C-alpha cells in the first residue's frame, strides 16, 4: 500500500513537471494579427520579411517584498500593449508593415538572483528587442547590467535611486523621478506657501539605506540653496520599532518639517509615535510609506497630511490618462494605481522609439529612446545622457482619507493641506 503511495507521489511530480512544460508560454498574447507573413523572430539584423511579433519582456516582482509594486506595474504594461495591438501594432518602416507586440512577463519573486535568470531567459529564449523593468531599486540594479551586457534597451520605473544611473550604463532608461528631483521639489513645493506662513526648520529622519543616504546628501544641498535649516538629522535602521528618541529631538528643536523615506512598516510606526508623543510637523514628506491605501486604512485621520513623491497620480491631465483610468476602473473598481501610469508610459516610449527607429535593431531602438521627446500619460518625456528621464515629479498628499495630487499647482486635484492640524484635533 505504501509503495503504491510512493508511486503516486512520484507520478504526480512527473505529471506536474510535464504539465508545466505544456503550460501557457506567455501571459500576454497580442490580440491583433500581423499584417505581413510571419517568419523569423526579431533579432539584431533584418531578415527581409516581417517577424510575427515584436518581442518585449519583463521580469517583475509579482510575489515577495515588492509584490505590491509589481502588481501596479504589470497592468500598466499589459494595457499599453493591448492598446497598441488593438491599433494594429507598431509600424516598422524596415518591413513596411505594422507588427503586433508580444509581451512576456516573468515573476522574479523580488529576488535579484532570479531577476538575472529571468532576464537571460527573455534574451535567449524570447529574443526580446527591449526589456521593461520590474520594481524596487535592487531589482533594477540586478537587471540593468544584464541589459547592458546583452545590449538590449531597458526601460524601468518604480525606482528613484540615482546611483544606478551613475554606472555608465548606455541601455538603461528610466522615465521616473529620481532622488535629485525629489530632494529639490519638496522645497519647490514648500516655496509655494506664502512666505509669512512658510516653515524654515527641518528634521530629517534618515533611513540607513542607499536611497536614504542619497537623499540625505541631496537634502543638505537643497536646504541650503532654498534657505531652509536642518535642525535635526537622525539615522535609523530599517524595521526599527522605537522612533521616540528622534521624534522627541525633533519636537524639542522646534522642527516644522519632517523629511523621510521610510518603508511602510517604519512609516506607520513613525506616524503613530508622532501622534502619541504630540509632535505634529506642519508638513511631513514620507516619500514611500504612505503609497498604499493601507496607510489610511490603518491610520485613519492620523495618516492625513502625509505627503509622498510616488512618480504619478491618476488625476494628472495628460492625454490618455482618462482612458487608462476608465479601463482600470472597469477591471479593478478604482482609478489607475500610482505605478500603472509610469508603466504604461514605458511602453508608449518604446513604441514611439521603435517607430522612429524604423527597425527592430536593438542599438537603433536604444538611440531612438535616447532621443525621445514626446508626451505620454506621465506628461512630457525626454532623457538625459545618463538615462534619467526629464519627467514631472508630482507630490501627493493624504487629505481626508484621499490621496490628492497637490503639486505642481497646474495639475493639482486639491490644494496643499498646510499647516497640518495637530494629531489630537483631527
Amino acid at each position, binding site marked *: 500500500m505504501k*509503495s*503504491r*503511495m*510512493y*508511486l503516486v*507521489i*512520484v507520478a*504526480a*511530480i512527473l505529471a*506536474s*513537471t510535464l504539465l*508545466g*512544460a*505544456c*503550460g*501557457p*508560454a506567455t*501571459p500576454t498574447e497580442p490580440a491583433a494579427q500581423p499584417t505581413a507573413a510571419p517568419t523569423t523572430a526579431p533579432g539584431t539584423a533584418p531578415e527581409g520579411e516581417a517577424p510575427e511579433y515584436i518581442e518585449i519582456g519583463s521580469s517583475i516582482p*509579482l*510575489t515577495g517584498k515588492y509584490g505590491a509594486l509589481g502588481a501596479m506595474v504589470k497592468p500598466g504594461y499589459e494595457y499599453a500593449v493591448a492598446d497598441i495591438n488593438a491599433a494594429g501594432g507598431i509600424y516598422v518602416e524596415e518591413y513596411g508593415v505594422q507588427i503586433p507586440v508580444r509581451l512576456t*512577463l*516573468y*515573476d522574479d*519573486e523580488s*529576488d*535579484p*538572483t*532570479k531577476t*538575472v*535568470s*529571468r532576464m*537571460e*531567459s527573455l*534574451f*535567449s*529564449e524570447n529574443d526580446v528587442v527591449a526589456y521593461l523593468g520590474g520594481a524596487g*531599486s*535592487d531589482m533594477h*540594479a*540586478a537587471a*540593468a*547590467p*544584464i541589459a*547592458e*551586457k546583452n545590449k538590449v534597451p531597458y526601460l524601468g520605473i518604480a525606482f528613484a*535611486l540615482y*546611483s*544606478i544611473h551613475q*554606472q*555608465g*550604463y548606455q541601455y538603461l532608461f528610466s522615465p521616473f523621478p529620481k532622488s535629485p528631483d525629489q530632494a529639490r521639489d519638496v522645497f519647490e513645493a514648500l516655496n509655494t506657501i506664502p512666505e509669512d506662513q512658510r516653515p524654515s526648520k527641518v528634521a530629517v529622519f534618515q533611513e*540607513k*539605506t*542607499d536611497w*536614504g*543616504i542619497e537623499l540625505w546628501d541631496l537634502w543638505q544641498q537643497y536646504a541650503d540653496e532654498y534657505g531652509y535649516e536642518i535642525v535635526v538629522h537622525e539615522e535609523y*535602521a*530599517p524595521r526599527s520599532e522605537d522612533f521616540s528618541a528622534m521624534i522627541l529631538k525633533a519636537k524639542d528643536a522646534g522642527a516644522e518639517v519632517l523629511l523621510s523615506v521610510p518603508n511602510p512598516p517604519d512609516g506607520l510606526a513613525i506616524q503613530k509615535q508622532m501622534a502619541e508623543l504630540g509632535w505634529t510637523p506642519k508638513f511631513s514628506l514620507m516619500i514611500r510609506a504612505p503609497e498604499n491605501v493601507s496607510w489610511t486604512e490603518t491610520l485613519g485621520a492620523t495618516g492625513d497630511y502625509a505627503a509622498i513623491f510616488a512618480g504619478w497620480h491618476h488625476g494628472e491631465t495628460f492625454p490618455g490618462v482618462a482612458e487608462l483610468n476608465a479601463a482600470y476602473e472597469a477591471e479593478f473598481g478604482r482609478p489607475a494605481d500610482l505605478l500603472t501610469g509610469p508603466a504604461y508610459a514605458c511602453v508608449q516610449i518604446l513604441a514611439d522609439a521603435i517607430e522612429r527607429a524604423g527597425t527592430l535593431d536593438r542599438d537603433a531602438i536604444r538611440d531612438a529612446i535616447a532621443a525621445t521627446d514626446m508626451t505620454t500619460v506621465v506628461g512630457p518625456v525626454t532623457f538625459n545622457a545618463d538615462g534619467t528621464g526629464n519627467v514631472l515629479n508630482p507630490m501627493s498628499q493624504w487629505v481626508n482619507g484621499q490621496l490628492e495630487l497637490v503639486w505642481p499647482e497646474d495639475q493639482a486635484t486639491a490644494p496643499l493641506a498646510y499647516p497640518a492640524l495637530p494629531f489630537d484635533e483631527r
Partner: protein
Amino acid sequence: MTGKRVLAAGLLVVIIAVLVALPLFVKKESNINLAIMVGLYVSLASSWNILGGYTGQTSLGHAAFFGLGTLVTRLLWLSTGLPLPLSILAGALVAVIFSLIIGAPAFKLRGAYFAIGTLALGQVLYVIVGDRWPMITSLPAAQLATYSILSRYYVFLAFTVLTIAVAYLLVNSRFGLGMMAVREEEDAAESLGVSALRHKLLALGVSSFLAGLVGGAFAFYHVGYYPQLPFGPLWSFDAVTIAFIGGTGTIIGPIIGGVFFVLLRELLAVKLVEIHLTVFGTLFVLVVLFLPGGLVEAWSKTRDALARRFRKQQGRPLPQEAG
C-alpha cells in the same frame, strides 16, 4: 578496485567531461545560467549536508558562511583589486574562522535549540551587514564590458566538483565515521572515545569553507545586489530543503535535490507565471510528507515496488517470501 567501483569512477569521469564540454553544445546563455544555478544550489546543499546530514547538526545559519564568502570576496576583489582567486580563498577562510569562533558555544545547544540558535546567528549578520553596507554592489561598467558567463560557469563547476569530492572523501574517512557516530548517538559516541565537539567543529569548518567558496563564486557571478542579500535566511532554507528533498546523509541526495529544485522551479516560473510558487510549494510539501528519505528513497522505493509488481505478475515469490 572492484568492477562496480571502476564503473562508477568511469561514469564520474564521463559526467565531468560532459559538464566541461557543455558550453560547446549549449549555446544559449540562459541555459548556461541555469547550469550555474544548479551548481550553486548543489554546492550549497552538499556543503550543508556535511554538517546537517552526516553530523546530524541541523544548522539554519548556513547563509552566514555563504554570505561571508560573498562579502569578503566582493570587497577584496572590487574594492582593493586583489586577484579573484585570492579574494575567494580569503572569503572562505573568513567563513571558517567565523564558524569556529561561534561553533564552540553553538554546539552547546542541541536539536531545535541549535537550529534556532544558528538561525538567529544568520539573522544577526544579515542585520549587521545591511546596516554597515547599505549600498548596492554593482559590477563596474569596465567589468561588465568583459563579463563572460562561461568563466562563471567553470568556476561554479569546479567548486561543485570540489564540494562533492571533499564531502565524499570526508565521509569515507575515519573522521566521517566519527561524524556519523555523533549523528546517530552523541553520548554513545563519546563513551567510545569519539570527541563529539571535535568532530562537529571539523564538520562545521569544512562545511563553512565550502559554503564560503560558493559565496565567492556568487560574488564573481552576480552583477548587482545588496551585500545583505546572500545573508538572507532563504539561502539556508533552500540548502536544507534541497538536502532533504534529495536525501540527507547521502552524497547523491543534494545533487539530485539541487538539480530537481532548480529545474522544476525555473520551469514552473516560466510556464506557470502566476501560480508557480503555489505549485512549487505544494510539490515540496508532498515530497517532505510522503518521502521523508528524499528522492533517493523515492527511487529505491519505486524500484522495489516495480520489482515486486513484476515478480507478482510473473508468479515468482518476493525475496522476503522466498525465505
